Structure formats: C-alpha cells, structure tokens
C-alpha cells in the first residue's frame, strides 16, 4: 500500500480517516499537526481564511517533500492534506501526519513537513477579518522559519 496520502481538496477528510490511515502502519508513534484558522492575528479578529492553490504544482511539491522526509526519517506512513476555499475559525486547513516506529522521528518529520510546506508549496492564504476587510497574506521567498 502507498505509504503517502497527499491531497488538496475543498474538504479535508475526517480526522478519523486520517488516523485510520496512519495507525494502520502498526508503528509505535503517530504525530499529527493541524493548522487551524486562528481567531486573533496581530490584534485583528479573523473570521475566515481562504486558500487558493496551484493544485498540480502543489501536489508535486508535497510529494517531493514527502520523499525528502522519507529519506531523512524512517517514515512508515505519511499524510499531507490541505484544504482550499474558506476555512472558518477553529477549523483545520491542513493536516500533516507521520507514523514511525519511535516517537522522535514522528515529531521531527511532521515539523519538517509543515515548515517546508509553508516555504515552497504553491498555496496561498487570504485573511478575511470580522471588520469585513480581507487581504492576501504577504510573504517572501525567504527560507527563514516563519512563525505562523
């Protein structure tokens, strides 16, 4: 069975499906990171985040990152799932999950994947604030570790 589950879609699969896939590795450790629409950013109140993606390039880049992670850590199974469209406060926009035999690599690989996803995967985020304004999040190509 393919050990990577990578997708970009309007809806995320249920978290139960995510865990069913990862736990089927019969490894000892599963780490799942989810990015959630945050209520407050820089003192402004967010209502929704909207994501646009270059789906074919983004999927290819996510697969590349999965391969890199698998070459650095003994990954048994891996998920990288990202939503497009509107994601309300408290909802997840992304699941990154890694199953490994031991716990250290599950944390390291998950953190690597979300860090790299934010640097290179062709997905963009627009913040919709409760005051009715919205704006595309402005970033750079810097490889500096971003904080959100």
């Amino acid at each position, binding site marked *: 069975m393919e050990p990577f589950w990578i997708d970009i879609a309007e809806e995320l699969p249920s978290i139960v499906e995510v865990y069913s896939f990862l736990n089927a590795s019969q490894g000892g450790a599963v780490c799942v990171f989810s990015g959630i629409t945050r209520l407050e950013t820089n003192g402004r109140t967010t209502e929704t985040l909207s994501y646009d993606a*270059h789906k074919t390039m983004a999927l290819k880049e996510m697969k590349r990152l999965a391969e890199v992670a698998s070459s650095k850590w003994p990954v048994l199974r891996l998920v990288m799932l990202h939503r497009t469209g509107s994601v309300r406060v408290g909802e997840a926009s992304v699941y990154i999950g890694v199953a490994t035999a031991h716990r250290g690599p599950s944390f390291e690989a998950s953190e690597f994947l*979300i860090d790299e*996803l934010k640097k290179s995967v*062709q997905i*963009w985020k627009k913040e919709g604030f409760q005051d009715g304004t919205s704006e*595309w999040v402005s970033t750079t190509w810097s490889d500096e570790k971003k904080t959100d």
Partner: protein
Amino acid sequence: MIIVTLRFFAVLREAFGAGIVEVELDAGTTGAELIELLAANNDDFSALQSVVRLAVNDEYVELGTILADKDDISFITPVSGG
C-alpha cells in the same frame, strides 16, 4: 506568433480578474519579457514583479527561458499556505 496559457493564483488571480488567460506572443519571447509586458499593463502585478517565479508546464524555469507555442505558464508569488 505563439499562443500560450497564463495561470494566475491568489493575489494575481484577483489582479487580472481571471485565473486562466490565453495570449498571443511574438515567437522568441522570454519569460522575463512576458513579465515586463504584464507589469506594464497591471499595477498589482508590477508591485509583485520582482518576486514572481515562472513555471512552464508545472516546472519552474529561469526567466530567460524562451517561451514556446502552447506553453502553460504559471506565475507563482511567494507562498503562504498551511
């Protein structure tokens, strides 16, 4: 003349009011020349011109690349997913 497809996303999709546009270009046009052409006609694109990366048929290319008929060209601004 060549015909190419341009793909815009996020802020550029809004800047151009469309995600996909077909345009005619002179044969021999480079990526950098195409970017100049778009920047001259769109202020929002112009503001992002220096950070835009170009992909042809889903692979990043150097700006000096000469574009070919039927190329599928994506303009990629710094990403912000997650």
